[in-house]
């Protein structure tokens, strides 16, 4: 449906195209369903569970002692804003699995967080360098409102999949809806296919 007299604002061409329905944002908006939890790195830990058994737990210091991976990428939030050329540093899920000496799991994974947030993605989407546990943004420690000290970062999916204040990844056979997915957000969330809501 055409809205006559609507032409959109004049804007600089983005460095690269943005996904359908998205607009470029210079700032870094914060969208969270609750307050920002107070997370202490002295007591923080992160664990991975595969098919019901815990295969590894890492403290803040242990996470930082693992190989560090830099990601330079664009990010896309389902609330319509995208941000280009962002810089993140963290530890790939591959390196965590290698540290625990286990084979890459198949199936699906549920992220668990301080504050109770959850989100689901297929296992392959967090493997082969596609996802990190990010602790650094733009050269600085990741701010609490953006998910610090550590958030999951899966830049090829809408940002609600990049769970803030991450504490666990649980690999399992079934794809179970997480927090927003139960409210009708898409099970996968590919911004380039504009998978915002359940049946998109």
């Amino acid at each position, binding site marked *: 449906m055409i809205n006559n007299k609507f032409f959109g604002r004049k804007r600089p061409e983005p460095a690269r195209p943005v996904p*359908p*329905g998205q607009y470029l944002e210079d700032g870094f908006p914060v969208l969270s369903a609750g307050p920002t939890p107070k997370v202490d790195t002295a007591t923080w830990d992160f664990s991975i569970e595969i098919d019901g058994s815990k295969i590894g737990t890492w403290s803040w210091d242990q996470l930082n002692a693992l190989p560090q991976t830099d990601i330079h990428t664009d990010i896309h939030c389902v609330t319509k804003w995208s941000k280009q050329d962002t810089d993140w540093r963290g530890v790939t899920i591959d390196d965590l699995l290698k540290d625990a000496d286990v084979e890459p799991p198949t199936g699906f994974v549920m992220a668990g967080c301080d504050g109770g947030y959850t989100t689901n993605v297929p296992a392959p989407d967090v493997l082969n360098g596609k996802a990190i546990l990010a602790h650094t943004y733009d050269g600085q420690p990741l701010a609490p409102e953006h998910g610090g000290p550590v958030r999951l970062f899966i830049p090829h999916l809408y940002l609600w999949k990049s769970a803030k204040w991450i504490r666990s990844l649980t690999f399992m056979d079934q794809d179970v809806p997480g927090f927003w997915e139960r409210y009708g957000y898409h099970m996968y969330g590919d911004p380039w296919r504009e998978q915002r809501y359940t049946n998109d």
Partner: protein
Amino acid sequence: MKIEPVQEWQIATVTSVNVESPRVKLFKLELGSETKFRAGQYFDIRLTAPDGYQAQRSYSVTSSPEDARTIELAIELIPDGEVSSYFHEYVEPGDQIELRGPIGGHFTLSPNFTKPVLLIAGGSGIAPIISMLRHRRSSTRVAPTAVIFSARTESDILFGTELAEMSDEDPNLHLTITLTRSKSESVATSSAPRETRRIDRPMIDSTIDSLGEQPARAYVCGGTDFVETIGNHLLDIGMAYDDVRTERFGP
């Protein structure tokens, strides 16, 4: 686990446009088909230019969910905002608008929730909260409810008359309005007294005193810094993380 799917795009017809404040207009839209929603939910609006360019933005519903055929949206004019400026400059009754919803099921409140509730809004963050209060007004009004609404100046207070009426007629509803850019201590035109500072811990404490007990749930909607600050206060006074629901807007 049950999934609540989001409806497809539909075309709504604008039935009225009203100026609510210097920066906010209210738009009533008649939906193409009955669309049930809950107080606190929002809709996506999609504008399409003749050349195919599209822009989408989300707006909270301000009307009560009792009417599932008509929704009201409060649209604040954002500097350089392509969607809000289109609505403010061009949209008039009879126009058709593409929209989709309702969306977002977490920041919602039902009148069936009977425990004490604290509602805190900054600026146009009152939008989902006025929907909750309108729903409350037409129901049994059981839950002791306290509202803190922070606006810049007297003229930026959205739904001021209605909020004052609600608070006057409902002994279980405690309303505090605070102005962050106003020097005057009292305003003659309003029945409810005004505070004149940003929402702080003492204001939250005295609001909770008026509620008589610790709120079982809090809803906070406003700009990012506003919600961060108040969220921290609410955790500090001992509210459980799960009992504080937030919605943030703006970079």
